[in-house]
């Protein structure tokens, strides 16, 4: 779950990390009050839970009040990667001498937390990793002892820091590591972490918290809600996993791997799925019904392809869910199904009686779905 910048910065501040002076506004007009308090120039930053905001035009510098208002209005009218801009963080512009990068994340392969630092901040780390991998210093952390101050300091030296900057870097790294642990984070990142007139300042600060650990951080529930589109919220209510994409062949599968494979097969035969919808483990008819209704209501979806391999999930429950969804909705769309596994026979019977075409293999089913989608589109 991604926190918004201002939320992450509030946490950073609590842990003693220097951040720019800033005020959150929720309407463009409020920018004037903010400027009165902060002075000029200011940086206006759209608060959206996605990376790459800068490139998408979500960060703007303003040198006078008119420019600030104009840019605030621009930002509030934007939508960045599907998220409307509901709030803007107005920050006093800092005098930047140099930009650094610092983050903590999980190194899956080695099953440990790792610190990444670079003397070249500002660029997205993925790009930097491609273009200049030698500029990224990696520090693996022993969980038993945590981040060692002297190792953080040694990294600071490697990225060219000395004197007070070096001391501050050590301090900020320790604070970020503590945040990483205290908040069950998957990522804590400052990019850029800038050297300014007043020392090191975390110009940007990002946090991703483990969704599975939200129960330990109930205060962050709101952030999780916000990250979801309306449809994804419905999905969460019913307990399935839903990601919206472009395309016209609605996919329902069970299990992330099988659902992704189903998308791959549809794609292989020339179709394009508009979503990822995994009904999860042990889905009962209600959940399946909600999933089917969701796709029926999505105007992009021309045909629905249900691909189930029953293990814990009963094929019969899936079949009942599909049939009930069709009965209760006005919208009619063609459905193609392939069902194998636990309670396979019962499930097949239910679908046959409802007139839904059944296939033995996912390849055949996918081909048929692609054919129908093209037919409907034509």
């Amino acid at each position, binding site marked *: 779950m991604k926190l918004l910048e201002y939320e992450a910065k509030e946490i950073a501040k609590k842990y003693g990390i220097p951040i720019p002076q800033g005020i959150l506004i929720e309407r463009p007009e409020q920018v004037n009050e903010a400027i009165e308090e902060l002075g000029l120039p200011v940086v206006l930053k759209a608060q959206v839970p996605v990376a790459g905001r800068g490139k998408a035009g979500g960060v703007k510098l303003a040198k006078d009040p008119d420019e600030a208002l104009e840019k605030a209005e621009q930002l509030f009218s934007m939508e960045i990667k599907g998220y409307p801009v509901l709030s803007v963080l107005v920050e006093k512009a800092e005098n930047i001498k140099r930009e650094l990068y610092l983050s903590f*994340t999980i190194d899956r*392969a080695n099953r440990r937390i790792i610190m990444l630092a670079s003397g070249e901040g500002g660029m997205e780390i993925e790009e930097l990793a491609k273009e200049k991998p030698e500029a990224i210093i990696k520090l693996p952390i022993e969980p038993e002892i945590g981040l060692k101050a002297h190792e953080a300091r040694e990294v600071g030296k490697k990225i060219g820091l000395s004197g007070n900057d070096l001391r501050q870097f050590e301090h900020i790294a320790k604070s970020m590591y503590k945040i990483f642990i205290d908040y069950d984070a998957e990522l804590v990142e400052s990019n850029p972490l800038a050297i300014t007139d007043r020392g090191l300042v975390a110009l940007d600060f990002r946090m991703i918290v483990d969704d599975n650990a939200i129960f330990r951080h109930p205060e962050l529930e709101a952030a999780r809600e916000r990250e979801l589109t309306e449809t994804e919220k419905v999905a969460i209510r019913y307990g399935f996993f839903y990601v919206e994409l472009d395309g016209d062949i609605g996919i329902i599968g069970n299990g992330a791997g*099988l659902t992704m494979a189903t998308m791959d097969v549809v*794609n292989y035969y020339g179709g394009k799925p508009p979503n990822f919808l995994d009904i*999860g483990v042990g889905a009962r008819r209600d959940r399946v019904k909600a999933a089917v209704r969701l796709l029926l209501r999505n105007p992009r979806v021309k045909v629905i392809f249900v691909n189930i*391999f029953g293990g814990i999930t009963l094929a019969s429950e899936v079949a009942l869910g599909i049939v009930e969804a069709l009965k209760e909705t006005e919208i009619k769309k063609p459905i193609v199904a392939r069902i194998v596994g636990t309670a396979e026979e019962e499930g097949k019977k239910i679908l046959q009686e409802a007139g839904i075409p059944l296939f033995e293999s996912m390849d055949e089913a996918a081909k048929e779905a692609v054919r129908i989608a093209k037919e409907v589109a034509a």
Partner: protein
Amino acid sequence: MVVLVDENTKVVVQGITGRYGKFHAEKMMKYGTKILAGVTPGKGGQEVLGVPVFDTVKEAKEKFPEINTSIIFVPAAGAADAIIEAVDAGLELIVVITEGIPVHDSLKAIRYARNKGSVVVGPNCPGVITPGKAKVGIMPEKYFTPGPVGIVSRSGTLTYEIAYQLTKRGIGQTTAIGIGGDPIIGLDTVEAVKLMDQDPETQVIVVIGEIGGDAEERLAAAIKRGEIRKPVVAYVAGRTAPPGKRMGHAGAIISMGAGTAESKVRAFREAGVPVADIPSQVPDLVEQVLKK
């Protein structure tokens, strides 16, 4: 010999009194897996499916010293504790079915297990099956048959799908290991493939990968270095998935530049591993290898 589980596997089920725990314990017993005891804190002294329930794994192990394996169905908030408990009881193999364990908890419990020498499979995995001998997991067993193919998979239902397609073609399996889809898992792809590589009965190893992480890239590198001697056939799910979005519980998320399907497929091909575009090509590729 087969991998990880066989007729000598003696199991304790942690979380046996829960709905899933009980359901799958029963299916495992029917398959012939030797389940000797269950553990649910606070329910010691009860009996479930004819086996005694204990408050702690230690008590179960004291009563049945031959127990060497645990399968964990404990809810996410307590699952890491359950792993640590199984490690402290000296169990060799710990299969963790539970999904949704906080990643910091997994980090701690799995590191602990590895330091103490216990093998953890999972979490968030379907378990391990050695067809005809033992099943320590939740997979629908009827799609698996004995034979020469070892399966190592990060996925659940997709593993069943591919085993089913192999079985339909008359190609059985030595052992199938679902290593789990979480960001932090115990036995990883490379380690699981190496176990398969050392198993005399396994002739081909099928690896079912997915987007996210760099397990497939690391396996390809190990193959390139000559660390795996047996032929490997691969499939990578998620070529159509967009970057930066999490695809279901599986933790299949692409970030930090690595972990795209393209990067994985490329790495496999460069290591000489044939890669299926879609699951139905896997049996063809396996057949080609077996014929050689």
